[in-house]
């Protein structure tokens, strides 16, 4: 088995190699080019608005929000019906629950702020905000200390599951809530 490399190995590519590299390069640049282009023309992109916020401040806001727009309760969790176009707030809690059940209206835009709070527990964990339903799935990170603003326009009425898909401790798999969209 000979290991030695030829003395001069720097030489031009053969025809097939040139063809392949050209195709591959165009393909790669094309797929790259589509990334910013799709961001501009597509209707569903990762949000670009976020802020720093203390865990306690976000919890204050969530409590005030729940209090102001609560319409009823389900299994002890407030169902909250905020006005269209408003800032709405949802948090994953330190006791592995979602802070409310949002009741939204189809066709209306909302500024949904997501973050992590203690909510009765000792620690505000990282969570995975995961909306799951037969036709729709969207996932965003919930990070304590950060307010992530999602501009959301629900399009179809129904009940959407809300689960956590970022490991956050022993109660992780019990975190299940929902978001209701009224027609």
């Amino acid at each position: 088995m000979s290991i030695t490399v030829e003395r001069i190995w720097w030489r031009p590519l053969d025809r097939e190699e040139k063809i392949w590299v050209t195709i591959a390069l165009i393909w790669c640049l094309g797929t790259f080019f589509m990334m910013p282009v799709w961001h501009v023309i597509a209707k569903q992109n990762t949000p670009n608005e976020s802020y720093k916020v203390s865990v306690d401040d976000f919890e204050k806001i969530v409590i005030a929000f729940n209090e102001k727009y609560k319409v009823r309760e389900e299994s002890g969790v407030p169902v909250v019906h905020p006005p269209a176009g408003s800032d709405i707030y949802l948090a994953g809690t330190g006791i592995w629950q979602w802070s409310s059940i949002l009741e939204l209206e189809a066709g209306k835009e909302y500024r949904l702020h997501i973050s992590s709070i203690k909510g009765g527990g000792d620690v505000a964990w990282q969570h995975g905000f995961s909306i799951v339903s037969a036709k729709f799935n969207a996932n965003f990170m919930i990070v304590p200390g950060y307010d992530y603003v999602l501009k959301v326009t629900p399009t179809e009425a129904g009940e959407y599951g809300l689960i956590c898909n970022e490991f956050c401790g022993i109660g992780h798999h019990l975190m299940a809530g929902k978001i209701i969209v009224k027609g």
Partner: protein
Amino acid sequence: MDEQKALSWQALYDNMWGIFALGIIVPTLIYTVWGLIEIATLPQMDVSKAMEALKPAVSQQAVPAAEAASAMAPEAATQAPAH
């Protein structure tokens, strides 16, 4: 192809320390340093503005402070673990 030119290109590829330096510096700048700067310079949320918008409606503002405080307490109870 000119042999000298080939050998000088090869020397570049044989430059272990140059490759090492670029391999550490380039991704550290593009990913780490740029990312840390973005995280560090993130603006603060305007908490008072948010709280202002969530104040109870005008007709309820006549409610005495004690009642407003107890309106907050049930919220804390619903946050407490039920299981």
